[in-house]
Protein backbone atom coordinates (compact mmCIF):
# COMPACT_ATOMS: atom_id res chain seq x y z
CA UNK A 1 0.00 0.00 0.00
CA UNK A 2 2.78 2.43 0.87
CA UNK A 3 3.82 2.36 -2.76
CA UNK A 4 0.46 3.26 -4.30
CA UNK A 5 0.89 7.02 -4.25
CA UNK A 6 4.50 6.97 -5.49
CA UNK A 7 3.62 4.57 -8.29
CA UNK A 8 0.72 6.78 -9.31
CA UNK A 9 2.98 9.82 -9.39
CA UNK A 10 5.45 7.96 -11.61
CA UNK A 11 2.67 6.92 -13.95
CA UNK A 12 1.10 10.37 -14.23
CA UNK A 13 4.44 12.14 -14.64
CA UNK A 14 5.59 9.65 -17.29
CA UNK A 15 2.34 9.84 -19.21
CA UNK A 16 2.34 13.64 -19.20
CA UNK A 17 5.82 13.65 -20.70
CA UNK A 18 4.78 11.23 -23.43
CA UNK A 19 1.54 13.06 -24.09
CA UNK A 20 3.20 16.45 -24.44
CA UNK A 21 5.44 15.03 -27.14
CA UNK A 22 2.52 13.98 -29.31
CA UNK A 23 -0.11 16.55 -28.34
CA UNK A 24 1.15 20.10 -28.84
CA UNK A 25 -1.78 21.52 -26.86
CA UNK A 26 -0.40 19.91 -23.68
CA UNK A 27 3.13 21.22 -24.12
CA UNK A 28 2.80 23.80 -21.38
CA UNK A 29 1.84 21.05 -18.95
CA UNK A 30 4.97 19.11 -19.89
CA UNK A 31 7.09 22.22 -19.52
CA UNK A 32 5.83 22.93 -16.02
CA UNK A 33 6.40 19.32 -15.04
CA UNK A 34 9.97 19.50 -16.27
CA UNK A 35 10.46 22.66 -14.27
CA UNK A 36 9.07 20.97 -11.15
CA UNK A 37 11.27 18.00 -11.77
CA UNK A 38 14.33 20.21 -12.02
CA UNK A 39 13.48 21.91 -8.72
CA UNK A 40 12.95 18.62 -6.89
CA UNK A 41 16.10 17.03 -8.30
CA UNK A 42 18.10 20.18 -7.48
CA UNK A 43 16.85 20.31 -3.91
CA UNK A 44 18.38 16.88 -3.41
CA UNK A 45 21.86 18.35 -3.71
CA UNK A 46 21.63 19.41 -0.06
CA UNK A 47 21.27 15.76 0.79
CA UNK A 48 24.58 15.07 -0.91
CA UNK A 49 26.20 18.02 0.80
CA UNK A 50 25.06 16.76 4.20
CA UNK A 51 26.35 13.30 3.34
CA UNK A 52 29.74 14.65 2.28
CA UNK A 53 30.17 16.54 5.55
CA UNK A 54 28.98 13.53 7.57
CA UNK A 55 31.41 11.17 5.87
CA UNK A 56 34.38 13.44 6.48
CA UNK A 57 33.52 14.48 10.04
CA UNK A 58 33.08 10.78 10.77
CA UNK A 59 36.53 10.10 9.34
CA UNK A 60 38.06 12.84 11.47
CA UNK A 61 36.27 11.84 14.67
CA UNK A 62 37.31 8.21 14.46
CA UNK A 63 40.69 9.00 12.95
CA UNK A 64 40.08 6.62 10.07
CA UNK A 65 42.73 6.05 7.42
CA UNK A 66 43.74 9.26 5.64
CA UNK A 67 41.57 11.32 7.99
CA UNK A 68 44.11 14.13 7.84
CA UNK A 69 42.91 15.03 4.36
CA UNK A 70 39.26 15.28 5.34
CA UNK A 71 39.60 18.82 6.72
CA UNK A 72 40.84 19.83 3.24
CA UNK A 73 37.56 18.67 1.74
CA UNK A 74 35.49 20.35 4.43
CA UNK A 75 37.42 23.60 4.17
CA UNK A 76 37.24 23.60 0.37
CA UNK A 77 33.52 22.98 0.55
CA UNK A 78 32.88 25.63 3.20
CA UNK A 79 34.98 28.28 1.53
CA UNK A 80 33.10 27.86 -1.75
CA UNK A 81 29.72 27.96 0.03
CA UNK A 82 30.53 30.98 2.18
CA UNK A 83 32.14 33.07 -0.56
CA UNK A 84 29.35 32.11 -2.95
CA UNK A 85 26.60 33.02 -0.53
CA UNK A 86 28.03 36.21 0.93
CA UNK A 87 30.42 37.70 -1.60
CA UNK A 88 28.53 37.01 -4.82
CA UNK A 89 29.35 34.80 -7.77
CA UNK A 90 29.92 37.46 -10.42
CA UNK A 91 33.21 37.51 -12.35
CA UNK A 92 35.97 39.04 -10.27
CA UNK A 93 34.59 37.85 -6.93
CA UNK A 94 36.48 35.24 -4.84
CA UNK A 95 34.00 32.51 -5.78
CA UNK A 96 34.57 33.01 -9.48
CA UNK A 97 38.32 33.44 -8.96
CA UNK A 98 38.57 30.09 -7.16
CA UNK A 99 36.42 28.47 -9.79
CA UNK A 100 38.47 29.68 -12.73
CA UNK A 101 41.94 29.55 -11.15
CA UNK A 102 41.61 26.30 -9.18
CA UNK A 103 38.65 24.18 -10.22
CA UNK A 104 38.99 24.73 -13.97
CA UNK A 105 42.71 23.77 -14.10
CA UNK A 106 42.05 20.74 -11.88
CA UNK A 107 39.20 19.63 -14.13
CA UNK A 108 41.33 20.18 -17.23
CA UNK A 109 44.16 18.17 -15.67
CA UNK A 110 41.94 15.22 -14.82
CA UNK A 111 40.53 15.39 -18.35
CA UNK A 112 44.02 15.46 -19.86
CA UNK A 113 45.04 12.34 -17.91
CA UNK A 114 43.10 10.64 -20.70
CA UNK A 115 45.97 11.24 -23.11
CA UNK A 116 48.10 8.95 -20.94
CA UNK A 117 45.40 6.40 -20.30
CA UNK A 118 44.46 6.21 -23.97
CA UNK A 119 48.08 5.31 -24.67
CA UNK A 120 48.39 2.64 -22.00
CA UNK A 121 44.98 1.14 -22.83
CA UNK A 122 45.84 1.00 -26.52
CA UNK A 123 49.21 -0.60 -25.79
CA UNK A 124 47.71 -3.31 -23.64
CA UNK A 125 44.44 -4.00 -25.43
CA UNK A 126 45.31 -3.75 -29.09
CA UNK A 127 46.90 -7.17 -29.60
CA UNK A 128 46.28 -9.25 -32.66
CA UNK A 129 45.09 -12.21 -30.62
CA UNK A 130 42.45 -13.27 -33.13
CA UNK A 131 41.19 -11.96 -36.41
CA UNK A 132 38.41 -9.91 -34.86
CA UNK A 133 40.82 -8.26 -32.45
CA UNK A 134 43.14 -7.67 -35.39
CA UNK A 135 40.36 -5.89 -37.23
CA UNK A 136 39.74 -3.66 -34.23
CA UNK A 137 43.44 -2.94 -34.01
CA UNK A 138 43.78 -2.14 -37.68
CA UNK A 139 40.80 0.18 -37.81
CA UNK A 140 42.02 2.05 -34.73
CA UNK A 141 45.50 2.28 -36.23
CA UNK A 142 44.37 3.58 -39.60
CA UNK A 143 42.02 6.16 -38.12
CA UNK A 144 44.75 7.33 -35.74
CA UNK A 145 47.15 7.73 -38.66
CA UNK A 146 44.58 9.48 -40.80
CA UNK A 147 44.17 12.28 -38.27
CA UNK A 148 47.77 13.56 -38.37
CA UNK A 149 50.08 14.70 -41.18
CA UNK A 150 52.35 11.64 -40.84
CA UNK A 151 49.52 9.56 -42.23
CA UNK A 152 49.64 11.55 -45.46
CA UNK A 153 53.42 11.26 -45.57
CA UNK A 154 53.26 7.47 -45.36
CA UNK A 155 50.62 7.15 -48.03
CA UNK A 156 48.39 9.97 -49.25
CA UNK A 157 45.37 7.67 -49.34
CA UNK A 158 45.40 7.04 -45.58
CA UNK A 159 43.23 10.04 -44.64
CA UNK A 160 40.69 8.89 -47.24
CA UNK A 161 40.64 5.34 -45.89
CA UNK A 162 40.31 6.63 -42.36
CA UNK A 163 37.41 8.84 -43.46
CA UNK A 164 35.78 5.84 -45.13
CA UNK A 165 36.08 3.73 -41.98
CA UNK A 166 34.41 6.51 -40.02
CA UNK A 167 31.64 6.99 -42.58
CA UNK A 168 30.85 3.36 -43.36
CA UNK A 169 31.64 0.54 -40.87
CA UNK A 170 31.76 2.91 -37.91
CA UNK A 171 28.44 4.46 -38.88
CA UNK A 172 26.84 1.03 -39.23
CA UNK A 173 28.18 -0.18 -35.89
CA UNK A 174 27.15 2.97 -34.04
CA UNK A 175 23.69 2.76 -35.52
CA UNK A 176 23.17 -0.84 -34.46
CA UNK A 177 24.25 0.02 -30.91
CA UNK A 178 22.01 3.06 -30.81
CA UNK A 179 18.90 1.31 -32.12
CA UNK A 180 19.38 -1.65 -29.77
CA UNK A 181 20.01 0.55 -26.76
CA UNK A 182 16.98 2.67 -27.60
CA UNK A 183 14.81 -0.43 -27.47
CA UNK A 184 16.24 -1.27 -24.07
CA UNK A 185 15.49 2.24 -22.88
CA UNK A 186 11.96 2.26 -24.23
CA UNK A 187 11.16 -1.08 -22.58
CA UNK A 188 12.76 -0.04 -19.26
CA UNK A 189 10.84 3.25 -19.31
CA UNK A 190 7.60 1.43 -19.99
CA UNK A 191 8.21 -0.90 -17.06
CA UNK A 192 8.92 2.11 -14.85
CA UNK A 193 5.91 4.11 -15.93
CA UNK A 194 3.54 1.18 -15.58
CA UNK A 195 4.92 0.19 -12.20
CA UNK A 196 6.24 -3.18 -13.31
CA UNK A 197 9.73 -2.20 -12.21
CA UNK A 198 9.73 -0.67 -8.74
CA UNK A 199 13.03 -1.57 -7.13
CA UNK A 200 14.08 2.10 -7.16
CA UNK A 201 11.41 2.74 -4.51
CA UNK A 202 13.06 0.33 -2.14
CA UNK A 203 11.73 -2.90 -3.51
CA UNK A 204 8.79 -4.92 -2.31
CA UNK A 205 5.49 -3.57 -1.09
Amino acid at each position, binding site marked *: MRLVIPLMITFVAGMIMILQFFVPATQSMGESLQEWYMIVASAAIFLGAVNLIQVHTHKIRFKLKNWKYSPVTIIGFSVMILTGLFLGIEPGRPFDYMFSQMMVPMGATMFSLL*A*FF*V*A*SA*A*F*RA*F*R*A*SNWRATLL*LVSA*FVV*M*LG*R*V*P*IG*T*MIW*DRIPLISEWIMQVPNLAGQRAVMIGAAMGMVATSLRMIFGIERSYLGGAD
Partner: protein
Amino acid sequence: MATFLEKLGNIDRRIIFIMMALAVIIPLSIRMSLPIPIGEGPSKDMYDAVEALPSGSRVLLSFDYDPSTMPELQPMAIALVQHLMTKDIKIVSMALWPMGVSLGNEALIAVSDSLGREEYVDWVNLGYKTGGGVLIVRLGSDIKSVFPVDYDGNPVDDMPVMDGVNKLGDFEMIISLSAGDPGVPAWVMMAGDRYNIPIGGGCTAVSAPQFYPYLSTGQMIGLLGGLKGAADYETMVRIGVENAPAGTATPGMAAQSVAHLVIMIFIILGNISYLAGKKKKGRVK
Protein backbone atom coordinates in the same frame (compact mmCIF):
# COMPACT_ATOMS: atom_id res chain seq x y z
CA MET B 1 65.86 -12.33 -27.08
CA ALA B 2 62.45 -13.80 -26.69
CA THR B 3 62.41 -13.08 -22.99
CA PHE B 4 63.22 -9.46 -23.67
CA LEU B 5 60.41 -9.28 -26.18
CA GLU B 6 58.03 -10.90 -23.76
CA LYS B 7 58.97 -8.48 -21.02
CA LEU B 8 58.36 -5.69 -23.48
CA GLY B 9 54.72 -6.70 -23.63
CA ASN B 10 54.31 -6.13 -19.91
CA ILE B 11 56.34 -2.98 -19.39
CA ASP B 12 55.28 -0.73 -16.56
CA ARG B 13 52.65 1.64 -17.85
CA ARG B 14 54.55 4.49 -16.23
CA ILE B 15 57.13 4.16 -18.97
CA ILE B 16 54.37 4.76 -21.49
CA PHE B 17 53.24 7.76 -19.45
CA ILE B 18 56.72 9.25 -19.47
CA MET B 19 57.06 8.75 -23.20
CA MET B 20 53.69 10.43 -23.79
CA ALA B 21 54.65 13.38 -21.61
CA LEU B 22 57.93 13.79 -23.48
CA ALA B 23 56.15 13.42 -26.81
CA VAL B 24 54.13 16.50 -25.97
CA ILE B 25 56.58 18.59 -23.94
CA ILE B 26 59.61 18.37 -26.24
CA PRO B 27 57.95 19.40 -29.52
CA LEU B 28 56.23 22.29 -27.76
CA SER B 29 59.29 23.60 -25.94
CA ILE B 30 61.66 23.41 -28.89
CA ARG B 31 58.89 24.75 -31.15
CA MET B 32 59.39 21.76 -33.35
CA SER B 33 57.95 21.96 -36.82
CA LEU B 34 57.34 18.76 -38.67
CA PRO B 35 56.86 19.18 -42.37
CA ILE B 36 53.16 19.35 -43.00
CA PRO B 37 52.33 18.14 -46.49
CA ILE B 38 49.94 20.62 -48.00
CA GLY B 39 47.72 19.06 -50.59
CA GLU B 40 44.87 20.59 -52.48
CA GLY B 41 42.12 21.63 -50.10
CA PRO B 42 40.35 24.52 -48.45
CA SER B 43 43.51 25.66 -46.61
CA LYS B 44 45.50 25.84 -49.85
CA ASP B 45 42.59 27.61 -51.58
CA MET B 46 42.58 30.18 -48.84
CA TYR B 47 46.33 30.76 -49.15
CA ASP B 48 46.19 30.96 -52.95
CA ALA B 49 43.37 33.50 -52.83
CA VAL B 50 45.35 35.77 -50.51
CA GLU B 51 48.52 35.17 -52.51
CA ALA B 52 46.72 36.31 -55.67
CA LEU B 53 45.85 39.72 -54.20
CA PRO B 54 48.04 42.54 -55.57
CA SER B 55 49.99 44.49 -52.97
CA GLY B 56 48.18 47.58 -51.78
CA SER B 57 44.82 45.79 -51.85
CA ARG B 58 42.51 46.19 -48.91
CA VAL B 59 41.17 43.30 -46.83
CA LEU B 60 38.59 43.37 -44.07
CA LEU B 61 39.54 41.00 -41.26
CA SER B 62 36.81 40.22 -38.75
CA PHE B 63 37.65 38.59 -35.42
CA ASP B 64 34.45 36.76 -34.55
CA TYR B 65 35.58 34.61 -31.63
CA ASP B 66 36.40 34.69 -27.95
CA PRO B 67 39.03 33.21 -25.61
CA SER B 68 37.31 29.81 -25.43
CA THR B 69 38.20 29.03 -29.04
CA MET B 70 41.52 30.87 -28.96
CA PRO B 71 43.77 27.76 -29.17
CA GLU B 72 42.43 27.06 -32.65
CA LEU B 73 41.64 30.51 -34.03
CA GLN B 74 44.41 32.72 -32.66
CA PRO B 75 47.19 30.92 -34.61
CA MET B 76 45.10 31.45 -37.74
CA ALA B 77 44.78 35.14 -36.97
CA ILE B 78 48.54 35.47 -36.54
CA ALA B 79 49.36 33.52 -39.69
CA LEU B 80 46.82 35.43 -41.79
CA VAL B 81 47.98 38.82 -40.53
CA GLN B 82 51.56 37.78 -41.24
CA HIS B 83 50.70 36.76 -44.78
CA LEU B 84 48.70 39.93 -45.47
CA MET B 85 51.32 42.26 -44.03
CA THR B 86 54.26 40.64 -45.80
CA LYS B 87 52.36 41.11 -49.05
CA ASP B 88 51.79 44.82 -48.21
CA ILE B 89 48.06 44.43 -48.10
CA LYS B 90 46.19 46.96 -45.99
CA ILE B 91 44.19 45.43 -43.15
CA VAL B 92 41.03 46.93 -41.76
CA SER B 93 39.91 44.82 -38.83
CA MET B 94 36.80 44.65 -36.71
CA ALA B 95 34.90 42.16 -34.57
CA LEU B 96 31.38 40.84 -34.41
CA TRP B 97 32.19 39.35 -30.99
CA PRO B 98 33.08 41.78 -28.16
CA MET B 99 36.03 39.71 -26.91
CA GLY B 100 37.40 39.34 -30.42
CA VAL B 101 38.67 42.95 -30.52
CA SER B 102 41.46 42.55 -27.99
CA LEU B 103 42.43 39.10 -29.28
CA GLY B 104 42.71 40.50 -32.79
CA ASN B 105 44.64 43.49 -31.57
CA GLU B 106 47.21 41.22 -29.93
CA ALA B 107 47.81 39.47 -33.23
CA LEU B 108 47.94 42.71 -35.24
CA ILE B 109 50.35 44.49 -32.89
CA ALA B 110 52.66 41.49 -32.54
CA VAL B 111 53.00 40.93 -36.27
CA SER B 112 53.05 44.61 -37.21
CA ASP B 113 55.90 45.26 -34.75
CA SER B 114 57.92 42.34 -36.07
CA LEU B 115 57.52 43.45 -39.67
CA GLY B 116 57.81 47.19 -39.00
CA ARG B 117 54.35 48.08 -40.20
CA GLU B 118 52.55 51.19 -39.01
CA GLU B 119 49.16 51.45 -37.37
CA TYR B 120 46.68 53.70 -39.24
CA VAL B 121 48.87 53.49 -42.37
CA ASP B 122 49.03 49.75 -42.94
CA TRP B 123 46.33 48.57 -40.57
CA VAL B 124 43.60 49.67 -38.23
CA ASN B 125 41.35 48.00 -35.71
CA LEU B 126 37.87 49.48 -35.82
CA GLY B 127 36.58 47.57 -32.82
CA TYR B 128 33.33 45.87 -31.97
CA LYS B 129 29.78 46.87 -32.76
CA THR B 130 26.71 44.86 -31.92
CA GLY B 131 24.23 43.82 -34.60
CA GLY B 132 25.70 40.84 -36.43
CA GLY B 133 24.03 40.47 -39.83
CA VAL B 134 22.27 43.85 -39.62
CA LEU B 135 25.59 45.52 -38.88
CA ILE B 136 27.10 43.93 -41.99
CA VAL B 137 24.26 45.29 -44.13
CA ARG B 138 24.90 48.78 -42.75
CA LEU B 139 28.62 48.43 -43.49
CA GLY B 140 27.57 47.62 -47.02
CA SER B 141 26.35 51.17 -47.52
CA ASP B 142 28.62 53.19 -45.23
CA ILE B 143 31.46 52.03 -43.01
CA LYS B 144 32.48 55.41 -41.63
CA SER B 145 29.04 56.16 -40.24
CA VAL B 146 29.06 52.85 -38.38
CA PHE B 147 32.66 53.22 -37.19
CA PRO B 148 33.33 56.97 -37.02
CA VAL B 149 36.25 56.27 -34.66
CA ASP B 150 38.49 53.24 -34.26
CA TYR B 151 39.05 50.99 -31.24
CA ASP B 152 41.23 53.63 -29.53
CA GLY B 153 38.81 56.45 -30.28
CA ASN B 154 40.75 58.08 -33.14
CA PRO B 155 38.61 59.44 -35.99
CA VAL B 156 38.92 57.14 -38.99
CA ASP B 157 38.57 59.96 -41.53
CA ASP B 158 42.16 61.06 -40.95
CA MET B 159 43.68 57.60 -41.37
CA PRO B 160 45.62 56.87 -44.58
CA VAL B 161 44.60 53.21 -44.38
CA MET B 162 40.95 54.23 -44.68
CA ASP B 163 41.47 56.33 -47.82
CA GLY B 164 38.97 55.24 -50.38
CA VAL B 165 37.32 52.81 -48.04
CA ASN B 166 33.70 53.80 -47.67
CA LYS B 167 31.67 50.63 -48.01
CA LEU B 168 32.19 46.87 -48.06
CA GLY B 169 32.40 46.94 -51.84
CA ASP B 170 35.72 48.75 -51.58
CA PHE B 171 37.43 45.69 -50.12
CA GLU B 172 39.10 43.06 -52.28
CA MET B 173 38.37 40.36 -49.74
CA ILE B 174 36.66 39.74 -46.42
CA ILE B 175 38.06 37.19 -43.96
CA SER B 176 36.11 36.11 -40.92
CA LEU B 177 37.62 34.02 -38.13
CA SER B 178 34.47 32.62 -36.75
CA ALA B 179 33.63 30.63 -33.62
CA GLY B 180 29.89 30.57 -34.17
CA ASP B 181 27.05 33.01 -34.69
CA PRO B 182 27.47 35.75 -35.85
CA GLY B 183 30.33 34.74 -38.07
CA VAL B 184 31.03 33.19 -41.44
CA PRO B 185 27.38 32.56 -42.42
CA ALA B 186 26.44 36.18 -41.78
CA TRP B 187 29.37 37.44 -43.87
CA VAL B 188 28.57 35.04 -46.70
CA MET B 189 24.89 35.93 -46.82
CA MET B 190 25.01 39.65 -46.10
CA ALA B 191 28.27 40.63 -47.79
CA GLY B 192 29.51 37.91 -50.12
CA ASP B 193 26.25 37.09 -51.87
CA ARG B 194 25.10 40.68 -51.96
CA TYR B 195 28.15 42.69 -53.00
CA ASN B 196 30.11 39.90 -54.68
CA ILE B 197 33.11 40.21 -52.40
CA PRO B 198 35.21 37.06 -51.99
CA ILE B 199 34.75 35.65 -48.47
CA GLY B 200 37.39 33.55 -46.75
CA GLY B 201 37.46 32.32 -43.22
CA GLY B 202 38.63 30.15 -40.41
CA CYS B 203 36.67 28.16 -37.87
CA THR B 204 36.97 25.45 -35.24
CA ALA B 205 37.48 21.83 -36.30
CA VAL B 206 34.05 20.95 -34.99
CA SER B 207 32.16 23.47 -37.10
CA ALA B 208 34.21 23.07 -40.30
CA PRO B 209 31.97 20.45 -41.96
CA GLN B 210 28.95 22.76 -41.84
CA PHE B 211 30.79 25.30 -44.01
CA TYR B 212 31.88 22.84 -46.69
CA PRO B 213 28.72 23.53 -48.74
CA TYR B 214 29.78 27.19 -49.04
CA LEU B 215 33.08 26.04 -50.50
CA SER B 216 31.53 23.78 -53.09
CA THR B 217 29.16 26.51 -54.26
CA GLY B 218 31.99 29.04 -54.39
CA GLN B 219 30.36 31.29 -51.81
CA MET B 220 33.59 30.98 -49.87
CA ILE B 221 37.02 31.06 -51.48
CA GLY B 222 38.77 29.06 -48.76
CA LEU B 223 38.52 27.87 -45.20
CA LEU B 224 40.91 27.04 -42.37
CA GLY B 225 39.49 24.32 -40.16
CA GLY B 226 40.79 23.87 -36.64
CA LEU B 227 44.38 23.44 -35.51
CA LYS B 228 45.13 21.52 -38.70
CA GLY B 229 44.00 24.44 -40.87
CA ALA B 230 46.02 26.85 -38.75
CA ALA B 231 49.11 24.65 -39.02
CA ASP B 232 48.64 24.36 -42.80
CA TYR B 233 48.49 28.12 -43.15
CA GLU B 234 51.45 28.71 -40.87
CA THR B 235 53.47 26.29 -42.95
CA MET B 236 52.54 27.89 -46.25
CA VAL B 237 53.23 31.40 -44.96
CA ARG B 238 56.67 30.34 -43.77
CA ILE B 239 57.69 28.85 -47.08
CA GLY B 240 60.47 30.99 -48.53
CA VAL B 241 60.43 33.44 -45.66
CA GLU B 242 63.67 33.82 -43.78
CA ASN B 243 63.55 33.93 -39.98
CA ALA B 244 59.82 33.68 -39.94
CA PRO B 245 58.53 33.93 -36.36
CA ALA B 246 57.36 30.60 -35.00
CA GLY B 247 53.65 30.04 -34.73
CA THR B 248 51.94 27.92 -32.10
CA ALA B 249 49.84 25.76 -34.40
CA THR B 250 52.76 24.00 -36.06
CA PRO B 251 54.41 22.90 -32.80
CA GLY B 252 50.97 21.87 -31.54
CA MET B 253 50.44 19.80 -34.63
CA ALA B 254 53.97 18.40 -34.32
CA ALA B 255 53.24 17.39 -30.74
CA GLN B 256 50.06 15.71 -31.95
CA SER B 257 51.96 13.80 -34.59
CA VAL B 258 54.71 12.71 -32.25
CA ALA B 259 52.23 11.62 -29.59
CA HIS B 260 50.26 9.62 -32.16
CA LEU B 261 53.50 8.08 -33.33
CA VAL B 262 54.48 7.12 -29.80
CA ILE B 263 51.14 5.39 -29.23
CA MET B 264 51.44 3.54 -32.51
CA ILE B 265 54.99 2.44 -31.78
CA PHE B 266 53.83 1.07 -28.46
CA ILE B 267 50.99 -0.80 -30.15
CA ILE B 268 53.47 -2.31 -32.61
CA LEU B 269 55.91 -3.25 -29.83
CA GLY B 270 53.07 -4.82 -27.89
CA ASN B 271 52.14 -6.93 -30.86
CA ILE B 272 55.72 -7.98 -31.65
CA SER B 273 56.09 -9.15 -28.09
CA TYR B 274 52.73 -10.88 -28.20
CA LEU B 275 53.55 -12.73 -31.42
CA ALA B 276 57.02 -13.67 -30.15
CA GLY B 277 55.46 -15.11 -27.02
CA LYS B 278 52.94 -17.08 -29.05
CA LYS B 279 55.63 -18.51 -31.33
CA LYS B 280 57.67 -19.64 -28.37
CA LYS B 281 54.69 -21.34 -26.80
CA GLY B 282 54.09 -23.11 -30.08
CA ARG B 283 57.64 -24.48 -30.12
CA VAL B 284 57.46 -25.82 -26.59
CA LYS B 285 54.35 -27.65 -27.48
